[in-house]
C-alpha cells in the first residue's frame, strides 16, 4: 500500500519528470513527505509564482513539461499568474496543488480556495482528485493533455486526505479521452491547395510563431523559406525558429517590428502564417493587416482559424508534419524584384545600430555579439527591455529566447531563467530585465544562490517603468504618472543575497562586465545605468495599421 503522495511521486517518475519547482504547506505535506524519500530534484523557490515561472522556463527550454507544486489556498492562488502566463504562450506545464480534505471542501475551511474554479479559464484542463484510486489515471491524462496538441498548463488539485489516503498503485492502462484527439497530419487536399497558392505568389512572406518551435519544425521552416525564397517575419514567441543571422530572417513584426518587416507584411501577396495566432500586437488594425495578401494558416489548434483574421486556406495539424508534407508538394518561381525591394527597405530603415552612450540597445548588441559561438539562453522580463532584446539580440537556435508574450508578465524572466538554468546547467543564461520587472520576483536571487545556478541578470536600469513611461511620453503628453522608480542599490542587493553585483555606467565598461559575469560561477546582477528616456522604436500606435509606424 502506498499513500497518494507516494503514488504521485511514482506517476511523476513514470512521466520522466526529473525536477519539480515548488513550495510546501499544510495541505501538501503528504506529498512533501513522499518527496523526501524520492530522487526527484525539488527546487524550493521563495514564491509560488516563481515556481510556476521556473517550471515554465524549464519547459520552454527543453520542450518537456514543467512541473510546479504548491499548497492549497494562497499557495495555489500564487501560481495563478504563472499558469496564465503558460496558457497564453502554449507552454506544457503540470501544476499540482494541495487542497483541504474532501470533507472540508465547500466549507470555507482554512486555506481553502476553489483553484479548479479559479483556473478554469487559464488551464487547458484541470482536475480535482476525489479518490486516491483515480490519481494514476489523472496524472497520466494531465501530462498527455499538457504536452500533446496545442500544449498548455493542466492543474491537478489534490485534497489532503487523497494524498494521505492509502491504496495499491495500479497502472491506469491506456488513456481513454474520447473528447480529446489532437490531429497531426494536415488534410492533403488543403496542402495541395496551399502549394498551388504558393506557386502563384509573387511576393510571399512567412509569418512564423511559437507553434514552429513547439512542434520542433525549425528545420522545415528553413527549408520552406529557402525553397520559395520567402522572407520570414517572426512573432515574439517565434524568435529562434529561424536563425537570426539567416539572410531570409526579417525579425519581429507588429507593434515594435522593424519598418522593413512591417512593410514586407503590408505589401506581400501571400502570407504564410505558421504556428501563430494573429495576436493584436502583431496585426495592429486588423482590417489593414496584410490586406493585399491571400492568407494560408497552419496551426495545430483549429480554433485559431478565423478567430482574429479571415484566412483563405487553413490547415489543421502539427506544424512539423504539415510542413514536411507541404514541402514535398512545392513548386515555385520566386520573383527577384521582391527580394530586391526588401533588401532596399532593410538598408533604408535599419534598426538603431548606434553604440554611443550607454544605450540599452547597445548593451544588448554587445551581449549578443559576445555570446555568439557559445551555448546560451536568453529570458526577458516585460517592457522596453523585452522589446529591445527581441529587436537586437541575434538568436540562432530555437528555445533560446524565452519571454512572456501573451500575458506580458513582469517578473517572469528571472524565475524563468532559474528554470532554464536547471534544465541547461552547461549553458550561459541571461535574463534581460528592467529595473521595475526585476523587483517583481527579486527574492528568487536566494533560490539561484542556494542551488548554485549562475544565472545572469542584465538590468537595463532607467529608473522608470520604461515602457509605460514611453506611452505616457508619446500618447499622454509626458505626464509621467507613477512611472518614475526609486530603486535599491542592485549591486548591494546582489551582494546581500550572496550573489555578485556589477555596476556599469559607460559603454566601455560593458564588455569587461559581461566577461566577468560569464566567468563567474555565481548568479550576477549587472546594473546597467542606461539613458533614462530611450524609446523602443519603431512603434505602431495602438489601433493603427502596422505600416504606420512612428520612429
Amino acid at each position, binding site marked *: 500500500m502506498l499513500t497518494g503522495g507516494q503514488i504521485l511521486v511514482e506517476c511523476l517518475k513514470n512521466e520522466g519528470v526529473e525536477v519539480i519547482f515548488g513550495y510546501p504547506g499544510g495541505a501538501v505535506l503528504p506529498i512533501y513527505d513522499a518527496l523526501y524519500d524520492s530522487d526527484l530534484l525539488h527546487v524550493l523557490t521563495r514564491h509560488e509564482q516563481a515556481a510556476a515561472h521556473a517550471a515554465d522556463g524549464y519547459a520552454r527550454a527543453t520542450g518537456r513539461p514543467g512541473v510546479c507544486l504548491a499548497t492549497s489556498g494562497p499557495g495555489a492562488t500564487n501560481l495563478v499568474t504563472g499558469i496564465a502566463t503558460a496558457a497564453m504562450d502554449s507552454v506544457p506545464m503540470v501544476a499540482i496543488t494541495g487542497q483541504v480534505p474532501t470533507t472540508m471542501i465547500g466549507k470555507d475551511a482554512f486555506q481553502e480556495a476553489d483553484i*479548479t474554479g479559479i483556473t478554469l479559464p487559464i488551464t487547458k484542463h484541470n482536475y480535482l482528485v476525489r479518490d486516491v484510486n483515480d490519481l494514476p489515471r489523472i496524472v497520466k491524462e494531465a501530462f498527455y493533455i499538457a504536452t500533446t496538441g496545442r500544449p498548455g498548463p493542466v492543474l491537478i488539485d489534490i485534497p489532503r486526505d487523497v494524498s494521505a489516503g492509502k491504496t495499491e498503485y495500479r497502472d491506469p492502462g491506456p488513456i481513454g479521452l474520447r473528447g480529446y484527439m489532437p490531429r497531426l497530419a494536415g488534410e492533403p487536399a488543403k496542402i495541395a491547395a496551399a502549394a498551388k497558392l504558393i506557386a502563384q505568389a509573387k511576393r510571399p512572406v512567412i509569418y512564423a510563431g511559437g507553434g514552429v518551435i513547439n512542434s520542433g519544425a525549425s528545420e522545415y521552416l528553413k527549408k520552406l523559406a529557402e525553397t520559395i525564397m520567402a522572407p520570414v517575419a517572426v512573432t515574439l514567441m517565434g524568435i529562434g525558429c529561424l536563425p537570426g543571422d539567416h539572410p531570409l530572417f526579417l525579425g519581429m513584426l507588429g507593434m515594435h517590428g522593424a519598418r522593413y518587416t512591417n512593410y514586407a507584411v503590408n505589401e506581400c501577396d501571400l502570407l504564410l502564417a505558421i504556428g501563430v495566432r494573429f495576436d493584436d500586437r502583431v496585426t495592429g488594425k486588423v482590417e489593414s493587416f496584410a490586406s493585399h495578401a491571400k492568407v494560408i494558416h497552419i496551426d495545430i489548434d483549429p480554433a485559431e482559424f478565423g478567430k482574429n483574421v479571415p484566412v483563405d486556406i487553413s490547415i489543421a495539424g502539427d506544424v512539423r508534419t504539415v510542413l514536411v508534407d507541404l514541402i514535398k508538394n512545392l513548386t515555385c518561381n520566386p520573383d527577384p524584384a521582391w527580394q530586391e525591394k526588401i533588401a532596399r527597405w532593410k538598408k533604408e530603415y535599419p534598426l538603431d545600430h548606434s553604440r554611443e552612450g550607454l544605450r540599452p540597445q547597445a548593451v544588448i548588441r554587445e551581449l549578443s555579439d559576445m555570446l555568439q559561438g557559445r551555448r546560451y539562453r536568453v529570458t526577458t522580463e516585460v517592457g522596453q527591455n523585452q522589446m529591445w532584446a527581441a529587436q537586437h539580440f541575434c538568436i540562432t537556435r530555437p528555445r533560446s529566447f524565452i519571454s512572456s508574450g501573451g500575458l506580458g508578465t513582469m517578473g517572469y524572466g528571472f524565475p524563468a531563467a532559474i528554470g532554464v538554468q536547471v534544465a541547461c546547467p552547461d549553458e550561459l543564461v541571461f535574463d534581460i530585465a528592467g529595473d521595475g520587472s526585476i523587483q517583481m520576483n527579486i527574492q528568487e536571487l536566494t533560490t539561484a544562490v542556494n542551488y548554485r545556478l549562475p544565472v545572469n541578470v542584465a538590468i537595463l536600469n532607467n529608473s522608470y517603468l520604461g515602457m509605460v513611461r514611453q506611452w505616457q511620453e508619446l500618447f499622454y503628453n509626458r505626464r509621467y504618472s507613477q512611472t518614475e522608480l526609486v530603486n535599491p542599490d542592485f549591486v548591494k542587493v546582489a551582494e546581500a543575497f550572496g550573489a555578485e553585483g556589477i555596476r556599469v555606467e559607460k559603454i566601455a565598461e560593458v564588455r569587461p562586465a559581461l566577461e566577468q559575469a560569464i566567468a563567474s560561477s555565481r548568479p550576477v546582477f549587472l546594473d546597467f545605468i542606461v539613458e533614462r528616456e530611450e524609446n523602443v522604436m519603431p512603434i505602431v500606435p495602438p489601433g493603427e495599421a502596422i505600416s504606420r509606424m512612428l520612429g
Partner: protein
Amino acid sequence: MRSTYSVLVENNPGVLARVAGLFSRRGYNIDSLSVSRTDDPGISRMTIVVEGEKAVLEQVTKQLRKLVDVIRVHDITDEPHVDRELVLIKVNADSGTRGDIMQIVEIFRGRIVDVGEYTSIVEVTGDEGKINAIENALKPFGIMELVRTGKVAMQRGIRTVLVED
C-alpha cells in the same frame, strides 16, 4: 443569426461550468442552454442556442470542441430537426376567468396542472413560436410567474448526434 448546437459532454463534475465559462469568457451570447444526462450515465447532452454573427458562431463550435470534456459538437440549425421547450405559467384565475383560460389552453394543446383559489398553472410544450403565442394569449389575465426549460432539439430521421458518428 441564431444557431442550435447539440453537444455531448463527459458527465464530469464542473463540465457545465467549463461550457458556461467559455461562453462568458469569450463574450458569446447564450440564448438558452439545457442539459441533462443521456441514456448513458457517463454522458450528458446539452442543447445550446446561441445568438451571434457568423464568425462568432464558427468560433463557438471550435472553442467548444477544444474542451477536453466535450465529446461531440453538432450544429443542427440547418438540418431538419424537432425542437421543444416546456413552459409552466402561473396565471391569475378565478371562477370568472377560469373557463376562458381553459379554452385557450385547449387550443394550444396545453394542460392545466394545478388549480388554486386564485391561480392556475398551465403546462405547454412546443416550439418557440407556440410558447410565445400562449404566453401572449395568457398575458391579459395576468401572468404571476413563468418558467421555461430552454430548448431541447433532435434531428429528424436516422441522423443522430452520438459519440461515434
